[in-house]
């Protein structure tokens, strides 16, 4: 209990004193996570919409597969990305290994399945009579799709929030692809991992609290958007 209290204390001190290391790591965390969630949304939203409104053989199997990928271990994503991005790998020419770009790449791959799956679920949750009403009112194909996305906007926003949560909290891919290089690819989770292995439990917990604080602010912002 004392450890936790002292961790809270440390976290508050680190924030109030505007500790440059912590600020730097937090800013990088937010930047990487935001970018990967943004790219994931740009890919997953149209992809989920396309899958939901197309009929093709194996659609159910594909959706099951996407849902299975929710459980993709982050270390596996990290490992596979590492193999692809390493100098001799097929994507080695990108020069992404041990860079924030590489971490964004990994997190994007991690988050796309969950956001795609949840977009499909969100669209499937729309009352079929609403779909009929949209068509009956004379919507063209594009209006039909955008009206559905608009109708499912809260559930889709939830998908974005979950994607964000998965990205900000993962450590496996970040450490494998980024390498936890100080001042370059170190983010909150990799810092926590490092401090824990060094036995600095209080600092680890404090960084964890800061991470949760960031997640809380994001959630509050999303909640505010939903109420509008």
């Amino acid at each position: 209990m004392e450890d936790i209290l002292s961790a809270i204390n440390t976290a508050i001190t680190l924030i109030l004193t505007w500790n440059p290391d912590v600020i730097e790591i937090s800013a990088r965390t937010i930047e990487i996570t935001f970018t990967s969630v943004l790219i994931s949304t740009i890919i997953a939203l149209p992809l989920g919409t396309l899958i939901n409104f197309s009929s093709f053989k194996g659609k159910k199997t594909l959706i099951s597969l996407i849902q299975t990928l929710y459980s993709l271990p982050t270390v596996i994503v990290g490992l596979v990305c590492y193999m692809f991005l390493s100098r001799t790998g097929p994507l080695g020419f990108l020069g992404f290994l041990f860079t924030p770009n590489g971490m964004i790449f990994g997190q994007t791959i991690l988050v796309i399945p969950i956001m795609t799956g949840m977009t499909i679920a969100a669209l499937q949750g729309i009352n079929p009579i609403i779909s009929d009403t949209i068509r009956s009112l004379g919507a063209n194909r594009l209006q039909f799709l955008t009206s559905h996305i608009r109708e499912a906007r809260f559930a889709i926003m939830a998908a974005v929030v979950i994607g964000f949560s998965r990205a900000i909290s993962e450590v496996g891919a970040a450490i494998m692809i980024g390498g936890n290089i100080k001042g370059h690819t170190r983010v909150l989770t990799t810092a926590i991992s490092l401090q824990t292995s060094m036995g600095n439990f209080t600092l680890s917990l404090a960084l964890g609290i800061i991470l949760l604080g960031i997640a809380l602010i994001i959630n509050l912002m999303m909640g505010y958007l939903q109420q509008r």
Partner: protein
Amino acid sequence: MIKLEHVSKSFGDRLIIDSIDAEIPQGKIFTIIGPSGQGKTTLLRLINLLDTPSDGEIFFNGISLKKYPKNNTDIRRKMGMVFQTPVAFNETVATNIGMGLTYRGISKSEIQGLVAEKLDEIGLSGYENRKARTLSGGEMQRVSLARVMITKPDLLLLDEPTANLDPVSTTKIEELIRYYNRTCGTTIIMSSHDLYQGQRLADIIAVMMNGKFVQLGETISVFSEPCSADVAHFIGIRNILQGRASQVENGLVQVDLGGIIIYGLGSYSEDEVMVAIRPEEITLHVEETGKISARNIVSGFISDIQPYGIISHVIVNCSGIFLTTQVTWQSIRDLNLKPGIEVKLSFKAPSVHLMPVR
């Protein structure tokens, strides 16, 4: 306006619409009545291009809908449909009503004016900025109607629009349907399982059973001359019996019901027939009341009395044939009617409606 030519629709092995032919004239209210699950909704969906017929053709103002792919908006934007379950987009009332116009690329300011007009018509002025999902079912259905009517459709399709509503909301929706038909001249095709609603609103009624229009005509003719025992049963006639007909004289038919003999009007040769007699056309007598002028007089014993508000149905066993008649609650008390009492029933020959056996 709308012409149906051998229109059929099946889902898998199940034939839902079975080769329907009909013409719906411009400016009329055409009501499809029938029990639930007989294909009424499917037919409306076919006309609205939400589904495509398995066979046959539908014409809209002479143009075959076959020429249009499912997602074509040219024809669909000339009609509108209100569904049985009231639904609203997760938006404000104003956005809901203006949705169809938004799809047509009408400017926001123009939509705003038209929405205000529609809100006034449906009696929901001041509701513009309310969340549509917070409305009651009746209000939501009025919004659904306004959402369609704001697009000024030539054809309005209504799928049991009052099936889920309370009586007050139903009256309001019926008033609006009549209003739009009279003032805008909108042709309306509506389905209903409520035959009295059909009677209140329709110019033409089609009775739909097992995917077919079994009877089609002016409302009153369907009510007075049901074409089959099924239709008679659906429009609420209680006494439907089978018997053997024989022509007695010109226009008069004798029907042997297997215990009693009754007389009706028509021309039937020796054949099995169905007869339908409305309970309200049968008079009940307790004592010898002198001469009864009706052609048919049968006696029997009361077997049951079932109250329906201030009137009651008295079921009389006439030598094994059960006939139902209507008596007021007051008369039940005054005449001291109860099961077991011997009574006489009388009804005129024109009250006996004869139908073929199918």
